[in-house]
């Protein structure tokens, strides 16, 4: 048994399968950042830090005849979203009920996906820097109307080209901006979504949690997401009525090339 203590939970194998499948189904659409950045791992729960390949000088050394340096690393962060499910609902699922209430799991999946997106794009104060705060470019205003989005997106792409950052490019859109894009057509009826795809030559990604949008290069090597333990469901406790579980992951995130992203403000 590992630290997730799954075997201790009062859940059947079919019950665990149901929860894992439900979680995957909810998480995959919402994990926008993972669709745009490099992913390495998972390296395991014991993996605690990412190597930065850098050193810092130390004020002294054990003897005068030697010099000393210390390696610098980035500690991994942990995200955890707790939820509780009705044991009665899970028993019904075991009986074959197709509509068991897994709402709390769905909400936890949405929360942890949003938290991951925010950490990657906006940063996590005191823990890791996000793409937006590391970007080397001045933010570009998106403007209120989605039919005008092609202009700032093209401006973002042009900034990347000027910086020598090649494509293809991807666009992370916040919930509100994504909704506007998919429901809007330009004059003449051409969908904004299609126009943006032509500009970017890459994906447009629904990224709950971010405000506005970010244009990023997808050439690789610029944005590094290092997974320790990938998203997993663990067991916390239970009583006669509910089983308390949690979604958890550990990761670090680094921006290797600040020139490879442009933020578009709402």
């Amino acid at each position, binding site marked *: *048994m*590992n630290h*997730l203590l*799954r075997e201790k939970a009062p859940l059947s*194998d079919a019950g665990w399968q149901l929860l*894992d499948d439900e*979680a*995957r189904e909810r*998480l*995959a659409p919402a*994990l*926008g950042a*993972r*669709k*745009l950045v*490099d*992913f390495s*791992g*998972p390296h*395991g*729960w014991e993996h605690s830090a990412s190597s930065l390949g850098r050193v810092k000088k130390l004020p002294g050394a054990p003897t005068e005849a030697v010099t000393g340096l210390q390696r610098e690393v980035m500690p991994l962060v942990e995200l955890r979203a707790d939820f509780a499910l009705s044991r009665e609902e899970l028993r019904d699922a075991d009986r074959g009920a197709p509509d068991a209430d897994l709402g709390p799991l769905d909400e936890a999946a949405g929360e942890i996906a949003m938290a991951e997106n925010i950490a990657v794009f906006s940063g996590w104060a005191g823990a890791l820097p996000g793409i937006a705060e590391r970007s080397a470019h001045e933010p570009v205003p998106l403007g209120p109307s989605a039919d005008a989005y092609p202009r700032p997106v093209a401006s973002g792409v042009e900034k990347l080209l000027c910086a020598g950052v090649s494509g293809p490019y*991807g666009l992370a859109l916040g919930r509100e901006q994504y909704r506007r894009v998919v429901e809007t057509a330009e004059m003449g009826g051409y969908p904004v979504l299609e126009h943006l795809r032509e500009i970017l030559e890459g*994906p*447009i*990604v629904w990224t709950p949690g971010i405000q506005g949008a970010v244009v990023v290069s*997808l050439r690789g090597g610029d944005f590094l997401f290092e*997974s320790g*333990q*990938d*998203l*997993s*469901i663990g067991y916390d406790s239970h009583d006669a009525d509910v089983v308390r579980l949690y979604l958890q992951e550990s990761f670090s995130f680094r921006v290797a090339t600040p020139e490879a992203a442009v933020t578009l403000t709402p």
Partner: protein
Amino acid sequence: MGFDQYHEPPEELSAATRTFARLCASLTEEAEAIGWYQQRLAVESDPEAVAVMRDAQGEEFKHFCMDLELLLRRTPSWREVAEGILFQPGDVVENGEQAEAGALDGAGAGADGAYADSSLGIGSLRGAA
């Protein structure tokens, strides 16, 4: 010729077990090819031919590792043993004995076919948008 990677009647095997057997057969073939190239390299004196064969052997290294990785991903108990042996410092035999004992204790192996680390197995979603 035929379907001799199967040791039991194929029609009695599940699709997952047939795939597993095919991957095991591929793994064996890649290992054989690595050995053959090693022997050829040992006797070849033409430097151009050596360069080509060395490159070809590198391909077989890659194929072997890809087969092995997929098999380990799909077989948690095997992976658990492998994690105790591969890339570990120290005595190989001793590591092997300890890894085998740990796996046989049933510690965290889970059902074969699940993800070895009990995660949801989501990983990278590049290309999924």
